[in-house]
């Protein structure tokens, strides 16, 4: 069925507009339409729209939570709480920052709370537990699946993973968060500052302290 007919509402102020420019405007608005339309629909209580928004960000959120919390069960709790909180409060989202920053602000706050509680409980062992309650070293779990991967090198990498995990437990929750967002998630320090409700300058200083401590702990890697 090759024939397509579309009715478009075109705003006019009593004058005709250039069709090429109009086409450009239509294509621009179509590409931007998804996020803001989904957010507005979610603000009206549309759960399906909210779940579609969730799917755009949830893999990264789960990765962050898994890496920081250290266990699949805790990561799932953080994921659940973050998105429920976002759903309950989406009415207060005013498009002043991107939805991505807004969601990450919620997630990082929950992760910070989790890290602080963990610190108080002094559960800083790098060994974590999976959903079956079995212990595993999270950073050491990243295996090298490339064809022809060297098993000896893979073993060394796993050992290094364990040392990095231990070194990260020596950071304060905030240092760990900044280091995590910068090194593992690859975010810009300005964005990290926005997410943590602080300035880019403070985020820079925190990153400096975190890398110094990490290098100190990992000594012979320097």
């Amino acid at each position, binding site marked *: *069925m090759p*024939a*397509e*007919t*579309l*009715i*478009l*509402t*075109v*705003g*006019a102020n*009593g*004058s005709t507009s250039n069709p090429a420019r109009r086409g450009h405007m*239509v*294509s621009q608005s*179509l*590409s931007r339409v*998804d996020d803001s*339309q989904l957010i*507005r629909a979610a*603000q*009206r209580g549309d*759960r399906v729209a*909210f*779940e579609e928004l*969730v799917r755009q960000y949830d*893999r990264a959120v*789960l*990765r*962050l939570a*898994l*890496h920081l919390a250290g266990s*699949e069960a805790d*990561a*799932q709790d953080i*994921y*659940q709480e973050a998105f*429920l909180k976002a759903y*309950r*409060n*989406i*009415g*207060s989202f005013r498009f002043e920052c991107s939805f991505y920053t807004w969601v990450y602000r919620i997630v990082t706050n929950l992760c910070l709370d989790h890290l602080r509680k963990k610190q108080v409980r002094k559960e800083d062992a790098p060994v974590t537990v999976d*959903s079956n309650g079995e212990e595993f070293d999270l950073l050491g*779990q*990243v295996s090298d699946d490339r064809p022809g991967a060297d098993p000896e090198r893979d073993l060394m990498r796993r050992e*290094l*993973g364990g040392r990095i995990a231990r070194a990260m437990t020596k950071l304060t929750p905030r240092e760990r968060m900044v280091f995590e967002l*910068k*090194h593992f*998630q690859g975010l810009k*320090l300005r964005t990290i500052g926005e997410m943590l409700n602080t300035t880019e300058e403070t985020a*820079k200083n925190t*990153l*400096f302290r975190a890398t110094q401590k*990490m*290098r100190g702990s*990992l000594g012979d*890697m*320097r």
Partner: protein
Amino acid sequence: MNCDWVKQNVALYVYEELPDDQRHELERHVERCESCSVELGAFRAFHSAMRTVPAPEPTPNLLASSRMRLSEALEDAEQHRGWSRFTFDFAGWLHQARLAPALVLALIMVGFVGGGIAGWQVTRNAGGPGRDDGFKQPAEASIAAIRGITQDPASNSVRIRYDTLQPQTATGSLEDPKIQQLLLYAARNNYNSGVRMDSVNLLTQRPEDEKVRQALIFSLRYDNNPGVRLKALESLRGYVKTDTQVRDAVLEALVRDSNAGVRSNAITLLQPVMADGSVRQVLQHLADTDKNQFIRSESRRVLDSLPEID
């Protein structure tokens, strides 16, 4: 720029957070300062050692179960509305108006009434100095709404601001970006399932395009017409093995779709990734607990045909 400054900022340099001018100065300083060059080398060694151990990716199974758990919790969750319930959401209202055919019809009727008023106003001044040359008779462009009417007391001219609702036709090949955008729009937003089916049907010819694949995944997840979902599912067949998002969407269709036909087709589609632990787990769950007898027996049959894993 001195050595202390370089040592304080070497991390920002490696993480590409320094402004261009400072970056350039640091590079020049390091070229002629041995201790800073050693410091930069040490930080680079630290950085590359850290990069050999990336953050672990959540497994598809963990992601799927997190989504399911959230979906269940959202059923009972309520939004905090506060004062916002008393404010009028104009943009939201416009959005609803665009999507709701009944409201659009009402707008057109208002447009015709408004058009009649506008025609009368313009006719009154016909041939006068204030006539807008861009004005078209309602036969050419239906007036959707009159936004404002003002009269200039000095010249007696009338200024009318109005919107038009114009049917348009776009013609082009499937490679034409404008045609692609309209098809993507139709696949996601049109209320007529026949139009959605036609657009998905055409989009299935280009599943290699990332945007098209996203639109097909969207249709598979959210289209309320099982025929459209089935069409979208079929078109994703070639990507189950290589694209984890496609695999997640197909797994989700298998677990959650309300239509047994879509679910049984999803089982067939998952054939190339049956060896995957997470797929096996989902099939095992369905074989044990699914309410649909056909899905239970089909899952069991597929599981039995798989080689045992020690």
